């Protein structure tokens, strides 16, 4: 089993800047400037990162995609031109906003199209006269089925349905057959289909042999982002089966019905899709921490660290979808995607609330060929605090269960129980704490630590659709900033209901949303003030000193 525990070399940073050198901490600046080196931005870990190092969102998928490779020279070329002062940024913004008038039009066009799209059935969905529907599944011939904003289908290369987000797979088998035919048709020409854009819809294909994943979406996301979500679904399936098993099955029997093996797990995939529509973690490719006083977090981490066992690789404490603490084996790094999958697994099942769960799980980004064994339990009935102990040895249930007991004992002895309970009462902070009147919401990601922070989404984004719309705007800015052919570093976007600003540097990414009455100058000073606030609060909002066993 020890062989399972290996580091993915592809993620290492060539210059070894994974752990910022000691010299850098002393240089942590008061107010971060744009020229901030990676590793010194607010939220950057002081003693090495917890995660596999990801510089940007593209890194998450690039090794398989190969698409990001073309992008990196451009990125590098962009770096020396990093604006060095506020005036420079301000100048950049004014230049940009002239360019961006066109962009806003794009967006409006897109929105208008998607509204129209609601009225017309998609041309991509095949009509069928009679279909067999599952008991609780939606009837795929109904308009309601077509109205969904994003459909996701997974099929095998033999064209057999594996998963459908809405409607039963049986009823969709002919649709999936058509999808596979499209893929095969282009492959016969030594080509590959990536997407179809029509009538406000994007049909995105991701091929990961032996599976094909297809999304039919009329969201504002870019093709790249939809493909990224499909990859998450692929990894979710791997986490249940491992890549090795999946391939073995289809080598044995090409027309195998994979639903047999995935039965009972559909809700995990459903939950992942819902989570991706609400939680910016997936978009940012980063993890959010529960705001917690550094002293309390340190006590928790030390308790976790001391409750170790030989077979343990990761000890993770989480609340909701936020990280409280993570302790890892030396030299073993968890990938944010793997952590997201774990978060999703826990949030999709209420069964972990009772007793202690022990389940095989594959962390596909860490090692897609083997299973880890995870001990999952809640610390207390009433507390939203879930402990995940990831072990390499499936026989080690009692040893790992004892680690939990030892952790709880230490936690009690350190007397942080109460403080932890307090922190759980307010798992999200309000943007009002920042003290910038026009600021409505923001997302700040520290690239070197792979962590991000974001306040609670508050008024005027109250209803679910409004929250999704806000996330949609961030998605839009994000896709513009990370556009493969023309990446942008600064984006200023004036909309009818809010103004947004995005600022992407080699060290961090910042997206802010503020009042539509605010001015551009106001936004820039808000960014400055916000960055100072994040720096001041960084030891509460981030995990600065990650621990190892």
């Amino acid at each position: 089993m020890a062989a399972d525990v290996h580091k993915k070399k592809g993620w290492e940073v060539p210059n070894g800047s994974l752990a910022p050198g000691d010299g850098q901490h002393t240089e942590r600046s008061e107010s971060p400037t744009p020229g901030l080196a990676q590793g010194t931005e607010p939220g950057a870990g002081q003693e090495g990162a917890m995660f596999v190092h990801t510089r940007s969102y593209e890194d998450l998928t690039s090794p398989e995609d190969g698409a990001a490779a073309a992008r990196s020279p451009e990125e590098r070329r962009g770096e020396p031109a990093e604006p060095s002062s506020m005036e420079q940024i301000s100048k950049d913004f004014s230049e940009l906003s002239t360019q961006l008038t066109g962009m806003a039009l794009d967006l409006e066009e897109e929105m208008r199209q998607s509204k129209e799209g609601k009225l017309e059935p998609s041309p991509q969905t095949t009509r069928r006269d009679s279909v067999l529907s599952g008991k609780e599944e939606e009837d795929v011939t109904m308009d309601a089925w077509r109205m969904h904003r994003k459909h996701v289908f997974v099929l095998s290369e033999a064209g057999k349905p594996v998963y459908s987000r809405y409607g039963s797979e049986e009823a969709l088998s002919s649709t999936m057959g058509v999808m596979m035919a499209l893929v095969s048709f282009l492959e016969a020409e030594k080509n590959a289909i990536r997407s179809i854009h029509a009538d406000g819809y994007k049909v995105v294909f991701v091929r990961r042999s032996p599976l094909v994943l297809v999304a039919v979406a009329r969201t504002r996301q870019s093709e790249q982002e939809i493909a990224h979500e499909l990859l998450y679904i692929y990894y979710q399936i791997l986490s249940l089966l491992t890549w090795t098993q999946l391939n073995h099955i289809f080598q044995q029997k090409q027309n195998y019905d994979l639903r047999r093996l995935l039965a009972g797990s559909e809700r995990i995939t459903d939950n992942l899709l819902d989570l991706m529509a609400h939680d910016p973690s997936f978009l940012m490719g980063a993890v959010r921490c529960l705001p917690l006083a550094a002293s309390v977090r340190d006590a928790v981490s030390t308790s976790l660290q001391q409750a170790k066992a030989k077979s343990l690789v990761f000890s993770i404490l989480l609340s909701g979808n936020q990280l409280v603490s993570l302790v890892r084996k030396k030299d073993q790094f968890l990938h944010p995607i793997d952590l997201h999958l774990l978060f999703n697994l826990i949030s999709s099942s209420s069964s972990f609330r009772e007793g202690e769960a022990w389940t095989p799980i594959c962390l596909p980004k860490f090692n897609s060929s083997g299973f880890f064994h995870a001990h999952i339990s809640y610390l207390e009935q009433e507390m939203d605090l879930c402990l995940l102990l990831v072990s390499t040895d499936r026989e080690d249930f009692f040893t790992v269960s004892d680690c939990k007991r030892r952790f709880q004992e230490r936690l009690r002895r350190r007397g942080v129980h109460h403080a932890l309970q307090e922190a759980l009462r307010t798992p999200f902070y309000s943007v009002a704490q920042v003290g910038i009147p026009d600021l409505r919401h923001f997302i700040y990601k520290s690239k070197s630590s792979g962590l991000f922070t974001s306040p609670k989404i508050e008024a005027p984004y109250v209803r679910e659709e409004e929250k999704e719309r806000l996330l949609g705007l961030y998605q839009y800015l994000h896709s513009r900033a990370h556009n493969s052919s023309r990446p942008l570093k600064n984006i200023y976007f004036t909309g009818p209901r809010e103004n947004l600003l995005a600022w992407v540097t080699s060290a961090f990414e910042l997206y802010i949303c503020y009042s539509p009455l605010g001015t551009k100058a106001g936004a820039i000073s808000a960014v400055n003030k916000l960055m100072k606030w994040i720096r001041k609060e960084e030891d509460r909002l981030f995990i600065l000193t990650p621990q190892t066993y």
Partner: protein
Amino acid sequence: MGRDLGRHESFNESSLLQSAKPQLPMGMAQKATPGTSLEGIRPTYLYKVVLLGSTSVGKSSLAYRYVKNDFKESLPTVGCSFFTQTLNLEAGTVKFEIWDTAGQEKYHSVCHLYYRGAHAALLVYDITNKETLNRAKLWLRDLEKEFLPDEIVIALVGNKTDLAADREVATEEGEEFARTKGLLFMETSAKSNHHVNDIFMAIVSN
């Protein structure tokens, strides 16, 4: 087994105490437990029970009803869940270790881990779904491969008697099958708490 016993004991106690008195600090809770002082007088038995059967026949619900005396609709179990329950009998204290396995096929490969060393197995089927009884028969074949006949107590459990209106498997059918295979048999309902305690008592007294 003897070596394991000691190791499991400390674990069982603590997890039981937490469910009973979560507000008490560890040290206090231990003093408050009568079990600790009685241990010297009466023997303690560790009894490992494994719940097997198809998806959604009610394995987790049976375990939950037995351990917490409550019922709630639950989602499919991931991997397996582990519960403990202590039973004070005249003859001694019985510590139940209940392994509630997932019915899904993808977890079958790891199931033998959970039933290794088991003293009893509950083969659960759903009386409103004939197919689940057939699956239970397959589980039995698996168990027969793993254990000698006198090594393990096996009970066939027809769950969901509260849904008797949709019954697909007659009581006699289950009974008859259990009789030919020498299994204990009982029909239960985790929802209406019918025979749940009885079946656990039956396997331990057998």
